[in-house]
Structure formats: C-alpha cells, structure tokens
C-alpha cells in the first residue's frame, strides 16, 4: 500500500516554509510521496534536502522512497510549555531510518507511548499543513 495523505482537521503546529531547494520535497509530500536525495555521481543518499551532495560535492537528484522504515531512536515528550504541543502531551518524537538509508525526525502516532521500541517497523503518512505542503508522520506497521 502506498503512503496516504490524511486530513486531520486544521494544522495547528509550526508550518514548513518551502524554498527553491525544499519545494519539490514538500510538494511531493502533499501528493503522498516521500523524497530523499541521491547523488548521480557517487550514489550517496541524504536527508534533509540540500543543493550539494555532502559526500562528494556534486548536485544531488531526487529519489522516491517506499515510505517504510524502522525506529532508530525516540523520546516521549512529557513536558513542553509551547502551544500547541503542551495540549498534546505525551507524544513520541522519533528518528526513523528509511529503507533507503537516510534518517529523519517525525512523530510516531497510533501507538501507546509506553509500547514504543527501537527497531519497530513504521510507515509514513502525510498530514496537510499549508497550501501545497504536507508533513510526514509515522505509525507502526501492523504485523
């Protein structure tokens, strides 16, 4: 099953501001696709998007990912004074390692914070945040 875009009502969190570099990434997310970058010269893959390959200095290209990965590390935020997060406590902030290699930060949802374990398989879904911008979030892949 390919990743989906889930409408979760009004987005109340900080909103990514696309620019010339990151525009394709956020636009793809709004379509339900997760992109990282791959270097045509050396094959290095990276996230977040940049105008340079951090390995060899060449111009990177986009790579569409499966949207699946494993939980590399995480924390459960139990105190945050900033709105809207203070109203969502507790919640899981995770570092996900994609099948394609790069890692990214996101929230793991659909799972009791006390049941979260490093190594658990997760899949991406997207929530619209702004015109042409959606944010990737993660949920456990049911066995």
């Amino acid at each position, binding site marked *: 099953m390919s990743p989906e875009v889930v409408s979760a009502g009004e*987005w109340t969190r*900080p909103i990514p501001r696309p620019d010339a570099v990151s525009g394709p990434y956020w636009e793809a997310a709004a379509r339900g696709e997760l992109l990282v970058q791959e270097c045509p010269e050396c094959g290095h893959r990276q996230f977040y998007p940049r105008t340079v390959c951090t390995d060899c200095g060449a111009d990177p290209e986009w790579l569409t990912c499966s949207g699946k990965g494993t939980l590399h590390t995480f*924390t*459960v935020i139990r105190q*945050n004074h*900033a709105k809207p997060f203070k109203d969502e406590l507790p919640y899981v902030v995770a570092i996900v390692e994609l099948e394609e290699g790069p890692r*990214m*930060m996101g929230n793991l949802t659909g799972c009791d914070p006390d049941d979260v374990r490093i190594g658990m398989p997760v899949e991406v879904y997207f929530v619209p945040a702004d015109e042409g911008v959606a944010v990737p979030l993660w949920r456990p892949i049911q066995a």
Partner: protein
Amino acid sequence: MADRTPVIAGIGLSDYPVAPDLDSMQHHTLAFQRALADSGVAKRDIDGYVGAGGSHQQMVDDAVSMAEYLRIDHKYIDSTMTGGSSFEFHVQHGAAAIREGLCDTILVTYGSNQLSRMGRMLGTGGFTRGTQKVGGPMAYEAPFGNSLVGAYAMAAQRHMHEYGTTSEQLGEIAAGVREFAGLNPNAMYRDPITADDVVSSRMIADPLHKLDCCVISDGGGAFIMTTAERARDLAQPPVYVLGAAGAQTHWNISQMPDYTVTGAAKAGPIAFEQAGVTPADIDTIQFYDSFTITALLLLEDLGFCPKGEGGKFVEAGHLRKGGDLPLNTDGGGLSSCHPGMRGIFLIIEAVRQLRGQGGDAQVPDCRLALACGSGGWLSAIGTVIMGSEQP
C-alpha cells in the same frame, strides 16, 4: 627567546545562580573585573578579545559589542560560537594566536541572565510554537514538537538500547555532582541526592528525568590567557594549556550520525597527543553536564572507559569526591550554575583546581585537568587539557 607557551593567568565569576539586578553585559563585566583583579594583569595590556555572545537574539553581548563596552584595544578578536562549547574552542584558538605572536594577552568573557530574563523555559519551552512558518533545516524538525531535553533523550535512549545503560547509572552521575555542589556555598541545589532520587523524579522526556537535567541560572565567567613569560610577573601561578582540540559531527539533532558517539571521540585523542598524556594521567574532569547522558558519552568518547561501559564506570565511583577522577567539582550544571552556555565555567573550575584553590572540593595533588564542552545538541565538542607544571 621568550617563552610563548600559552597559559591561563586569571579567572573570575560573576554572581550566580540568581542575580536579578545584573543584565548579560553586567555579568560579562563583573566576571572580567574579578578576573583582572585575580590575575594582576593591567587592563591596558589586554590586546586580544574573545567572546561567543549568545545571550540575546539582539546581539547585545556579541564579541564586537563587548570589545567596545569594555574598551579592549585589541589586535586579535574571535567570535567563534559553537553553543556551550564555545569557550573550549576559544582556548584552542587563543593558544594558537598567542604562540603565533598575534597578541600577548587575551580576555575571554561570558555572561547571561537566562533565569531572570526567561525563566526555566530553555529545556522544555519548545524551539518553535504555534503556526509560525519555519524554513531551512529546522523545517524538518519544528513540526514535531521536540524539546532541548528531547534531543539529548534520543541519545540516551539509543545508548540504553545498544549497551544496556540504565537510568540508575545515569542517576549516579547527578548524585555525584550534587555531592560537590554541597561543598559550594553558591550552588543552586546543595542537598544530597541519590541515584534513586533521580530515577523517581518526574519524567521530562524519556528516558531523562528532571534530575537528569541541568539547572537554569544566571551567571557569567571570564578568563585571561597570556604567555608563560608574562605570567611570571603576575599574581597567580600560571595554568598551562597543554592541549586543545575540537570537532563537530552535526548541528541539529536529527543529523547526528551516531547517537552514541560525539565529536569528543575525534577531538580527545588530538588533545591528548598534544599534551603528551593519557586519560589515566588526568586528575580531574570538568564536563559539560547539560544532562547526565552528556557526561556519560564524553567519558567514553575521551577514552576514560571503553564505548558502552560508561554506566559501569560511573557505578564504580570514580567520579565521586575521593574517587580517582572527580567530575565537576563546583557542582556542575546539574546542580550549581547553567546560564545557557556553560563551557567557560569548566575552564575556570579546572584552573581553580590546578592552582590548589578548590577549597573543600580540592582534588588532592591535582596536576592535570581536562575540560570538555558540548555545544548544540551533542554537536560541537571542544576538549582542553591543562596542567600546573611547565611542559
């Protein structure tokens, strides 16, 4: 030929942990005046200024502003800002400048009224709030509501996963530092605590509890570097800079290449080689203890114990008063003073110990001290090895 070996000749602290009548510039200034008096240096002889600023987004205390306020007639200035480790990088840069003859006497200052101005929001106030728009690399973190504590918690979680490190072991670090805070009349928290107290304190961001986290305070510090030659006529026994090195693995926490390894693994061996000593030779360590996990990672990365064995090393009591490697003899950031960027206090406390001025917390026969600062989110690490004897 004049001996241009770099030394630290003067140290000063401003008022801490709570000083509501001082703004950040006044913390810099008070610490400077005390370092000047401590050293016996004449103000007109200072020909280098180094500072990281960082106390205000309005940049009131950045290096050029402070050089103007203090009227330092400098021919060398450095405003390197790597977060809390800035001051260890400053020693590295200042030592090179003094050896090269770019200047003779360098003033380094820091000051922040973090607590009085902002309250205790630094760790859990969130980096961003509401629906503000965020560009650049932070766009890939800001929507997820991580906190400063949460960033370090991710490293602790991974370390526990890979090596079986326990919350009790991390708690022992905080308990040991608190023991030293009990000997510092100015420390913010002085009552003894146990590892169990740490583990049973409120969870802030799993697996870090409230007592795994440093305090938020006001405070400032200053030190003066010069040549061994000039230091002969000054007021205090000089402390020699034997090695200084830095390294950066990432800035934002989502970019950390290995959540169990910091830049100290690279900077440490360089500093030890420069100094011609090994971890076993060090008499006291002054670490940036933003969180208990910070100190644990630095212990391993600097080679005081093998990677993954920090928890057992801590349990064995090495870091305690009376141990063979006392940690943070001033009470550290965990219990005494943390105005936002603590790195300067590591240098100042190491100097105090090497002079034999540590009072009740004095480490016996202290000849070699290591200060290691962590800036950002375990991002930029600076290591300085200092000695009481001429190399």
